[in-house]
């Protein structure tokens, strides 16, 4: 049995990717399970989805804690202590990372000893579909790594996406981009062993009464420590030559991330700006540009 785990952020398409892969494998004659980890759905929040593929009947249930293949749709999750995409990956397994970096660079950067495959899905999505929606692209990459046929993938995309995407043209662009990714990935021979990776840090919490175990937060206003800045695909950048200091961007920012400096010019807290770009759209002077983020090319996704 092949066990795959997808890691993405809400809105990127991890859930749909796992579904498309499942359908493709099913159409290719396999027994299949696919399902997301249930959680409150939020754009930007870490999302996990699972696919099991087997020639035999699948009797296993529940989340996959020991995957053979991990598909990382959002690179910033690799350093997120809550997501931990590499957790439980079997020795000899394969890690796919959506990044402009080479596999070797990613291996070094994230200290991965297993086989790494990389492709800049975000760029392909933006170039070929016009949006950083990566479900079909990630499904294509996963299908290729899992050894699923191209025709089955094509049929699965049609079957699963036609219910979600009403525009025929966008659906075709998705399929085209997916097949491009399918061909761009070099298939690998995979031999995984069941042994668990070392250094896994699992903490067992004992049962306590409600008064002890209920989480009381005694701090005030500490969410900026979460640093939601790594949700961005584009960052807003101000052109102070055009800025009229009208305060529109400050009033329009849902996060309250935009402040003004001593001279009255606005600037963003990039550590937490989620990149919604309301500011850029609302700016009457058109003084705010959107610039594609390259999280991987800087320290901790800050610049």
């Amino acid at each position, binding site marked *: 049995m092949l066990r795959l785990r997808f890691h993405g952020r809400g809105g990127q398409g991890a859930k749909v990717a796992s579904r498309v892969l499942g359908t493709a494998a099913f159409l290719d004659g396999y027994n299949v399970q696919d399902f997301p980890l249930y959680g409150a759905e939020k754009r930007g929040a870490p999302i996990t989805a699972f696919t099991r593929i087997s020639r035999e009947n699948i009797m296993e249930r529940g989340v996959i804690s020991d995957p053979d293949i991990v598909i990382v749709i959002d690179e910033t999750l690799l350093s997120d202590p809550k997501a931990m995409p590499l957790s439980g990956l079997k020795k000899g397994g394969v890690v796919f990372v959506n990044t402009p970096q080479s596999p070797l660079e990613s291996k070094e950067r994230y200290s991965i000893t297993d086989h790494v495959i990389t492709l800049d899905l975000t760029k392909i999505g933006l170039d070929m579909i016009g949006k950083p929606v990566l479900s079909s692209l990630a499904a294509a990459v996963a299908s290729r790594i899992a050894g699923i046929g191209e025709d089955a993938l094509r049929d699965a995309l049609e079957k699963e996406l036609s219910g979600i995407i009403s525009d025929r043209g966008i659906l075709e662009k998705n399929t085209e981009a997916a097949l491009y990714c399918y061909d761009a990935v070099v298939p690998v021979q995979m031999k995984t062993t069941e042994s668990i990776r070392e250094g896994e840090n699992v903490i067992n919490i004992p049962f306590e009464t409600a008064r002890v175990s209920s989480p009381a937060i005694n701090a005030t206003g500490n969410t900026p*420590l979460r640093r939601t800045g790594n949700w961005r695909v584009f960052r807003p950048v101000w052109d102070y030559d055009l800025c009229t200091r009208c305060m529109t961007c400050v009033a329009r920012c849902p996060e309250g991330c935009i402040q003004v400096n001593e001279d009255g010019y606005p600037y963003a807290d990039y550590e937490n700006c989620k990149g919604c*770009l*309301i500011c850029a759209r609302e700016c009457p002077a058109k003084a705010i540009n959107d610039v594609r983020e390259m999280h991987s090319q800087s320290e901790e996704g800050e610049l």
Partner: protein
Amino acid sequence: MDTIPIRSIREIPPEENMLSGTPACAGCGGLLTLRHCLKALGEKIVIVNAASCFTLLSIYPFTPFKNSWLYTAMACAPAGAQGVRDALDILIKKGKLDPEEDLKVVVLTGDGSAYDMGLSSTSGAIYRNLDFYYICYDNEAYGNTGFQQSGATPFASRTATSPPGGARPTGAQLQKKDLFEIWNSHRPPYLATISPAYPVDLVNKFRKAEQYKGPKLFISHSSCPPGWGFDPSHSVSLAKLAVETGIWPLKESVHGKVEHTFVPKKFKPVEDYLKEQERFAHLFKPVRQEDILKSIQETVNEYWRKHKLLS
């Protein structure tokens, strides 16, 4: 508190009482509403939050708030507010809390709680003339669980439980409840609709509400990028279109007497608003559903005619 109305966004209080880094979606219209509400309300408040998207704002060990926050089940936030208000009153009466240190009790819920599950406990709280604020951010479905239809879902919207297609090409079959009128029938001291796209109007309404003891209720239309299906950057422009097309009237009611606080000089066609959202895409593609579009426009026209603001 200053009761002279502010005139521009430059006069909005600069203090941020809700900090960044929340788990809310990028471009959340409800969050923008809440940010301005908290600027208007100040720091001395207690939020009583019914289960909704915004219960995820405070997740152990993080909170974006400078104030206290209490989580209740979906149906009973106003009942929770009654308990908090009573506790504060008793502490003041016993001399254990300086009246200067008193807190405003603020209920915060989504439309699922306000329009559906929490309607009876809200009715009870208004009936008892509980001294509290109520902020409902209305994104017109159960957004937190994947956008299922609620009593606030407008006619013809696609939701997870009203997918258009086959025998029912319309999407949601039912009309949105008029929560403003339901609440207004209780004659609360202050009731208003607000929008994240009109922060000056919003802040002024909170300032005006301040003078009244008893229920002060606010319903905010709240643009929802993942649920409605639009790019997060359009969040404010869509909220604005809802007002400019007449779909979301900005109004207030003092002891039951209703006044509109902003009437567009010329109403834009509702289509301008609908066509920007994936949840209404089935009305335009693959075939244009002319009769549905007409009936939505007619419902809006009827509202404004009834209020003698459209001939």
